[in-house]
């Protein structure tokens, strides 16, 4: 994004995503959007609202209810020269499509030595915090981040959502684009008008500080920012790093910050064991252990399915109090 004064408009995250999709459809006739309820209805979260009316039912269309079919269809469209942008209604319903992702989406370029490639984007709402029914709050990003050949992007602000989505659509390789349900309407800010891209693979410093680095993404950025404010009130300087893309991960920004602060707290709402937070922790341990003044601490969900029990849902998802406690723990170590 350039620093010149571009006109902006205040938008929610879901409006920014809608704006990006409209710009992509407008700018590139090969872009096609499809999935369950994306057409007439405009998606269950309204991310594709109005797009079918504007761009026609050939370019924005409802598919039958079949996720393997949706991803498989996109693979074929991508092979044959279109730009498929598929929506999976909730990340927790991606699972029927995992065969297509694991067997094909991630390895087409490799298995044809780049004769074929898949410029496909799969968008999926993910994460908790809004009392959804069973399986609607999953955070399966680590599963995707473990598949060679697919990129994983998770924005945390409306402006980033727009810029990163336009980058994802322009990218020649398959990109999973996870959107935190909690942020769709709660995150609101001035978003630049018109077309711009935010490059994949570049983390963002949300706050700067000298004492602790908190690494997070998506729905956890807002939580960590609030924890950082609380810590600052106690004289602790917190650097919040928003990864923005998990694959490729911006290790340089993470390591530079940890080398400066000497302390790392890694936060995500996914289950604890083998989460992407573990990858971040391992990278820090490998590359910057001599700079650490305290053990790396992870603040995560738990090794249980995301609870569908509304009254205790908030126990699972890290909140500012839990993150602030971890910050104090590494500072006091």
């Amino acid at each position, binding site marked *: 994004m350039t620093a010149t004064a571009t006109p902006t408009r205040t938008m929610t995250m879901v409006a920014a995503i809608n704006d990006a999709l409209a710009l992509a459809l407008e700018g590139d006739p090969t872009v096609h959007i499809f999935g369950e309820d994306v057409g*007439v209805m405009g998606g269950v979260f309204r991310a594709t609202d109005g797009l079918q009316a504007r761009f026609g039912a050939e370019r924005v269309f409802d598919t*039958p209810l*079949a996720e393997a079919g949706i991803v498989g269809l996109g693979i074929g469209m991508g092979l044959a020269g279109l730009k498929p942008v598929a929506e999976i209604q909730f990340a927790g319903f991606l699972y*029927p499509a995992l065969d297509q992702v694991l067997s094909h989406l991630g390895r087409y370029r490799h298995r044809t030595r780049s004769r074929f490639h898949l410029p496909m984007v799969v968008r999926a709402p993910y994460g908790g915090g809004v009392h959804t029914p069973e399986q609607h709050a999953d955070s399966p990003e680590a599963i995707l981040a473990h598949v060679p050949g697919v990129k994983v992007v998770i924005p945390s602000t409306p402006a980033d959502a727009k810029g990163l989505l336009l980058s994802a659509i322009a990218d020649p390789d398959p990109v999973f684009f996870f959107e935190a349900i909690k942020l769709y309407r709660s995150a609101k800010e001035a978003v630049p008008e018109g077309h711009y891209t935010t490059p994949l693979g570049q983390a963002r410093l949300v706050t700067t500080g000298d004492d602790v680095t908190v690494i997070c993404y998506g729905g956890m950025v807002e939580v960590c920012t609030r924890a950082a404010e609380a810590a600052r009130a106690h004289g602790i300087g917190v650097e919040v790093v928003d990864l923005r893309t998990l694959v490729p991960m911006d290790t340089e920004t993470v390591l530079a910050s940890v080398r400066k602060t000497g302390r790392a707290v890694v936060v995500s709402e996914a289950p*604890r064991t083998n989460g992407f937070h573990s990858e971040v922790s391992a990278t820090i341990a490998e590359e910057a252990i001599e700079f650490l003044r305290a053990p790396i601490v992870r603040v995560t969900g738990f*090794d249980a399915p995301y609870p569908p029990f*509304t009254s*205790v849902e908030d126990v*699972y998802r890290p909140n500012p109090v*839990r993150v602030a406690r971890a910050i104090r723990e590494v500072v006091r170590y």
Partner: protein
Amino acid sequence: MTQPDLSPIPPGTEPPPQDDLFQFLAPDGTTHHPELWPDRETQLSLYRHMRRIRHFDERAWVLYRTGRLGVFPPYGGMEASQVGTAAALTNEDWLFPTYRDTGAALTYGLPVARTLAYWRTSPHGWAMPGNLKVLPFYIPIATQYPHAVGAALAESRKGTQNVALAYIGDGGSSEGDFHEALNFAGALDAPCVFILQNNGWAISVPTRTQTRAVNLARRADGYGIPGVRVDGNDVLATYHVTAEAVRRAREGDGPTLIETVTYRIKPHTLADDPARYRTDADNLGWAEKDPVTRLRAHLLADGLLTGDADAALTREIEAEFEAALAEADAYPDPTPAEILDHVFAEPTPQLLRQRAQIEAEE
């Protein structure tokens, strides 16, 4: 079983009118095949079940609006499809319901208080009674179909005559799992009854966008199993075809696919706004096909039911519901650490550490 007309229907057209369907009791009171009807006691029992589950559906909405229930997918208008099918089972048989099938689970015997607890997102609703072979409402679409085949196969391998019955929607029948399950069941002779409730919509997607097929029961042909298309708002007919399919399965004649043609008059869930995708014209005529009023009119005309007996039934159903609601109100809220229960038979060291963490943070 009397088969419906299986002549080819041109693809890509609207579904055929409902009077082409296998039917016993038409909306206007016309009757067909009286020799095949269930006995009078069964007719009354089916009526009672429909009234009971309709009451639940109506009360659930009020409870939702007053914040006493979570997101609830209503089934009002589909009572005949759920009661006629579930009532054909005994509690030795298996029931695999989706989120839409609260009425079927209640008919099968899931206690009202537990059912309320489920939709209140209380763990007490996930604790399935040990004397029932009913699974929690399936949220991911179509995944229950292969499970039903497996349960049915297990029963036959164990030498019982028990069957498994599973529900799916018209949308769900697009998923691969649906097709794999039908094929497995046929190939393995599993005593399975597949109910495909075609209620016209998968959230905003009408059946004609979902598939070019108009007769979904004919999909059974591709797997070598019988398929039956029935008026899903005629409880006598749905009961008959399901009972026949259950009998066939028990006798070792394998699986059946039953398409119940019905309609979702209500929204997908209360969070859904159907005005975005359908007009009043789409709903036209469906109120007149209402399964409950249809059977009530017949029972009254036939002298099987009196106005007084009907009023007494209403009071009985209301009393049962209010007692169950009081029972559900008394279920305690879960403790925070309960979110870690029931992950493994024995908690792993990691889970034990995480439990200590939650308890320390309380």
